């Protein structure tokens, strides 16, 4: 569904409103090719065309929400949307006033469309399989257009559309000896793909050496940006949202109370202006360019969605309570010097399956996974059998932080649970004097 069709549908619904009713219409649209690969062959390949409409019907201080899928046919979609609107209207009569109802009463408009140079998905897959000949490659290709729209009876009209590709894959040597890579963006360049595959071949060469089995204990370590991304993902889980802070559930509770802090070099921001997500919320609020979450290692602010903002009296600065465009400030370490600075310890390429071990102390557990090596005297010498860590971020980003890399990597989420994600993170690598391995 394109912008014109969506706004026409919204106009049709707005014309159906009764009395003082207010309607917010939000659209999510994707036309995606998905190709799963295993052993450098196609495992599953298909296309998904999906369009979903969300409505919020408001009258006075009452509101109800609903959603339905759309077909793309204007007549049929009007029927579906009107049926949903009627159901919401029926329900609105039975719900009480909502003291935290919050929406923008200021009409606003925006239109952001990103250009892209995407190859036909089948062509890209053919090139990938040819380039990776001889490798045990497994992963997922996702490509196509995604769009989000907002229209309201107040006068909001926003459209955000982009076409992109996201190739997320790993190459295996045997069992759990593997290296991982990702290539995503808007302009497909086969040369970049070939370069990444070449780097993976070099990684697999190291993987062919006998794996080092570590005993539980504390080890010096370098966490590559992808591994840092997993830790940031944990902080995104209740770390920054206003409701978690006001109800004392945030894993940064001790930080907010001044009892603990990160290293002064740690700065974490929600970078709306850098990210790929829409710059408007479902309730019609614009998002600011940047929200400071941690500055100088100390708590700086929260992400405030419309509902929490009303409940706790804070201005809205985000569409949801989890970051979608997170950035961790760069440091001064050159990536080329990291192995030397590490000297002897773990080079952790990726972490996996993190969870809170004890959120009261910001303690996280998880596993090492792809591309994790043992380094001696500044040289990568062997892969490492997967190990479990269990440690507090107050240590890893605090008293045991030795440095952050000058270079940062832009990581585009490959997640597709609720359609193709627009989340991204811009992250450096992190050198720590110790990480606790437990199993």
């Amino acid at each position, binding site marked *: 569904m394109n912008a014109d069709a969506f706004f026409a549908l919204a106009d049709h619904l707005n014309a159906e409103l009764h009395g003082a009713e207010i309607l917010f219409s939000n659209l999510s649209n994707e036309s995606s090719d998905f190709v799963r690969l295993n052993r450098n062959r196609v495992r599953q390949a298909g296309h*998904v*065309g999906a369009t979903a409409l969300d409505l919020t019907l408001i009258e006075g201080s009452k509101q109800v929400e609903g959603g339905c899928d759309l077909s793309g046919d204007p007549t049929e979609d009007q029927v579906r949307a009107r049926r949903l609107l009627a159901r919401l209207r029926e329900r609105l009569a039975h719900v009480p006033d909502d003291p935290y109802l919050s929406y923008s009463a200021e009409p606003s408009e925006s239109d952001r469309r990103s250009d892209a140079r995407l190859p036909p998905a089948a062509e890209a897959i053919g090139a990938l399989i040819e380039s990776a000949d001889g490798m045990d490659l497994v992963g997922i290709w996702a490509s196509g257009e995604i769009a989000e729209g907002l229209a309201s009876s107040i006068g909001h009209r926003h459209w955000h559309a982009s076409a992109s590709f996201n190739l997320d894959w790993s190459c295996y040597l045997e069992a759990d000896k593997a290296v*991982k890579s990702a290539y995503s963006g808007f302009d497909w360049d086969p040369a970049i793909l070939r370069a990444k595959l070449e780097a993976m071949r070099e990684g697999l060469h190291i993987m062919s050496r006998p794996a080092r089995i570590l005993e539980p204990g504390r080890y010096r370590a370098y966490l590559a940006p992808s591994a840092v991304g997993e830790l940031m993902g944990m902080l995104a889980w209740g770390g920054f949202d206003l409701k978690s802070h006001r109800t004392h559930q945030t894993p940064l509770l001790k930080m907010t109370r001044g009892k603990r802090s990160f290293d002064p070099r740690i700065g974490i921001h929600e970078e709306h202006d850098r990210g790929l997500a829409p710059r408007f919320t479902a309730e019609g609020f614009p998002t600011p360019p940047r929200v400071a979450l941690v500055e100088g290692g100390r708590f700086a602010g929260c992400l405030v969605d419309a509902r929490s903002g009303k409940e706790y009296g804070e201005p809205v600065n985000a569409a949801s309570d989890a970051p979608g465009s997170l950035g961790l400030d760069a440091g001064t370490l050159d990536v080329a010097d990291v192995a030397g600075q590490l000297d002897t310890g773990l080079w952790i390429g990726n972490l996996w399956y993190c969870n*809170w071990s004890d959120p009261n102390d910001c303690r996280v557990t998880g596993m090492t996974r792809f591309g994790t090596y043992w380094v001696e005297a500044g040289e990568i010498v062997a892969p490492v059998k997967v190990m479990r860590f269990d440690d507090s971020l107050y240590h890893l980003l605090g008293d045991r932080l030795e440095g952050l890399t000058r270079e940062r990597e832009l990581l585009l989420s490959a997640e597709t649970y609720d359609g193709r994600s627009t989340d991204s993170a811009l992250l450096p690598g992190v050198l720590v004097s110790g990480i606790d391995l437990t199993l």
Partner: protein
Amino acid sequence: MQHLCDIAERFLSQAPACDYWTLRLVEEEHDHLEVRQGVVEPSRLTYTSGAMVTLVKDGGIGYGATSDLSAAGLRAAAERAAGWARVHARLGLFEAGIYPRSSTRADYRTPVEEPWSTLPIGEKLDILQAANDALAIDDRIVDWSAWLARRRVSQLLITSDGGRVSQVLDYVHPGLVAVANAGSQTQRRHGGGSDGSQQGGLERIVAVCLLEEAPRVAEEALALLDAPECPTDTRDLVLLPSQMVLQIHESIGHPLELDRILGDERNYAGTSFVTPGMFGRYRYGSELLNVTFDPTVPMELVSGVADDEGAPAVREYLIRRGILERPLGGALSQARAGLPGTANTRASSWDRPPIDRMGNINLEPGEGSLADLIAQVERGILMDTNRSWSIDDSRNKFQFGCELGRLIEDGELKGLVRNPGYRGISASFWRSLDGVGGPESLEIRGVCNCGKGEPNQSVYVGHATPPCLFRDVAVFGGGE
């Protein structure tokens, strides 16, 4: 269901010319009601509907999914699927000829005693307000909620071989949470059915004691604030069904998924420490360990008549007397691996192709009560309600945390401990199983957020289990 039948007729009138096709039509209705801190949260009604067309054509397999259920929309989806079948024919991992065909004809409908529509929304909100009020027993309760969620999934699968499987699954999920805080210590306690989902209607509200549970949930959250940390030690461990669900899920269910063993999931959900050669001989656990794939248990989350490729649902032993018997693999994976399997090929909705998933994975009961298990412990910990889960990509090294722990000394339950956790290795952990509760202690539960697959899919998974006793497990508490 008649609506889906009409759409199926639309498709049949223009069925694509190919070796084999399936059309899977899915409609879902969701409703969510919640009262938090005495305030009714915005209710949310959602309706989704779409079709997944699978084609086997010209030596390849392709998928096309669409929310456009018109004749033109279905035709376009079939054409997309045919295009991808051509790619698969050229670059596919396996021959399309092994794709399973189904002529199964079966129907299933959740037996619902009290349909969702029989109680007006105002009365549902009254129940939630009452439950919510009952959680607010102390100023240290800093957040509290009660909710009711309803989901109905109507699915019709038809195939070019004459297969026709219709299934209508109804769920009502009640739940409670209380959050307590004192100083820098925050504790959460869930209850009221929040982690004990089953199929059914509004009768679930009474079954899970939504109202009656509220004071206990809040009191335990408060009590945990003042409880000592769980000791760091090696002790015997009694896991209640509320945690056994997770233990079974992560360290039996996932490692036995045949697509993981075949390598499909290595880039995302991971592989498995289980290899094809282990089936029929590998000692997975002690003699007390009996695990079934059982889609026949009344009201369990994934009970039904067939999987999403039309394979008839049949109960099978996965592990018997501790010996690994068969993997969780649907017909396609069985053909790829040359192993027996189960009818467990499932998709999260109309917009994803089916893959190997857990269905109902149950630990069969042994003998005796929970008290009998506790009586066998000289020095141990009892753990209740999962709150943290992490396991390696081979599903071996795990660490799990629970909301509540209790010390066990000389066969008796003692005081609470907070932030209890334990870690182990799947390959050895189940061999330390030394007690399995009897049928009277069995609880039918499950998880509603099992994630897997590329593109990602989240599905419901059922787990029925009694409490169990494990010997000499590494346990620990909170703190930096």
